[in-house]
């Protein structure tokens, strides 16, 4: 019984990291499995990175972000390090926003997600364009970025609720 309790504790404490790796192995692009809703595909990785680096930086290590990015690159088949660099640039902007913000509000954090997302996707775009022979629809990237931005408040509430519940249990 003690073993189960330990496993449960480990799983519960590292749930967000497990989800983050799971998404990387599954090359998750929100709603891609539903043909009618594929238009609303978004990048959940970006939302998780932005939210956790901004609000709870101790729960999602930078090493995990780096490694999950590498896995994502391997699964999707793009040059190694592209997603990692993109997520780390997002982390950098998020860290800067966290340091520069005095009083955090969801709306202001939502708005600051735009430049962070822009620079992260810019890095992604530059690497794909200059370091590989792959071509892709730029409109898809723009659309994915738009819906990533749009769906941020929903996940903000979900992750915030989970963290509050998690912290409460921990105490």
């Amino acid at each position: 019984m003690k073993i189960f309790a330990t496993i449960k504790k480990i799983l519960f404490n590292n749930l967000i990291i497990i989800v983050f790796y799971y998404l990387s192995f599954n090359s998750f692009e929100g709603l891609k499995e539903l043909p009618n809703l594929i238009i609303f595909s978004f990048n959940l990785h970006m939302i998780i990175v932005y939210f956790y680096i901004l609000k709870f930086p101790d729960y999602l290590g930078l090493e995990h972000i780096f490694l999950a990015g590498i896995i994502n690159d391997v699964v999707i088949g793009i040059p190694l390090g592209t997603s990692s660099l993109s997520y780390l640039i997002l982390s950098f902007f998020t860290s800067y926003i966290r340091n520069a913000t005095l009083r955090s509000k969801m709306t202001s954090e939502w708005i600051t997600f735009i430049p962070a997302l822009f620079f992260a996707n810019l890095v992604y775009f530059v690497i794909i364009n200059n370091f590989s022979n792959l071509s892709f629809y730029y409109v898809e990237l723009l659309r994915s970025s738009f819906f990533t931005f749009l769906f941020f408040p929903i996940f903000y509430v979900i992750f915030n609720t989970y963290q509050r519940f998690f912290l409460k249990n921990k105490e």
Partner: protein
Amino acid sequence: MAESRDDFVIAIRYALLKKGAKQKFSLFFLISFSILIVILDKLSVPFIQSTRAVLNDFVYEVAYVVSMPEKFTSYLGTKGIKHLNIIKENNNLKEEIEKLKIGRYDNLFLKTENESLKQVLKLESILTSGADKIVVAKVLLDQESPYLKSLLINKGRKSGVIKGMAVFSKSYLIGTIVEANFLTARVLLTTDLNSRIPVILQDSGVNAILAGTGKKTNYTLEYLPDEFILEPNKIIFTSGRDGFLTAGLPVAETYLNKNNELKIKALADPQQASIVHLTKRTK
């Protein structure tokens, strides 16, 4: 003014160099490391290539295991829907059997006509050619990414899979091998934006390049003669001009869509493929 600039520099430095309580590396180190990996990957250093092949094999196998619950859920969903529709399907099948009985003689005629047309085009038949090396593989993952359309299969260099091999599903060409690891390989589907296949059109014998657009019902034909008019219901075969694909492999066909526009669609649905055949042209 100088004070605000100092604050900006301090915030940047803090964001780059500060390590959290549980973090072993700073953001600056990881960003630099990522840039180094991107550059080494671009330069295709032999050491990096072999490391990447091992990493690919490992990640693909883990990704296959990770995708199992999702596949199982979708399997259950499909089975449930199939079960609900079984009576309807049964009736349809009965009707179809009746139609097939009637159409059997028509099929024999079409088969003979097809063979003679192939002879006219001087095209080879792919899977019937004994000289071709055939490898059967199972699809591990299908990447329905908006950017890249590819499949991961469970056969690699160990089973004789090499870069450039043609991949078939139900005798129709669905893609080519673009990455062969030791135990796994990646198939670039013909529907992918990066896919370009030299083809020949049925009856006309006109050569062109079949390019993917990301959709299985919307291919494009490049380098067609200026005054050439494409007709519906024509099969598109590989021309074999690239030197590694056998000529005469059926890939796509022209059709008229609901808006009466002429489009090109794939003969096989790559997303439905679970077992694929790989062949290499033997000279």
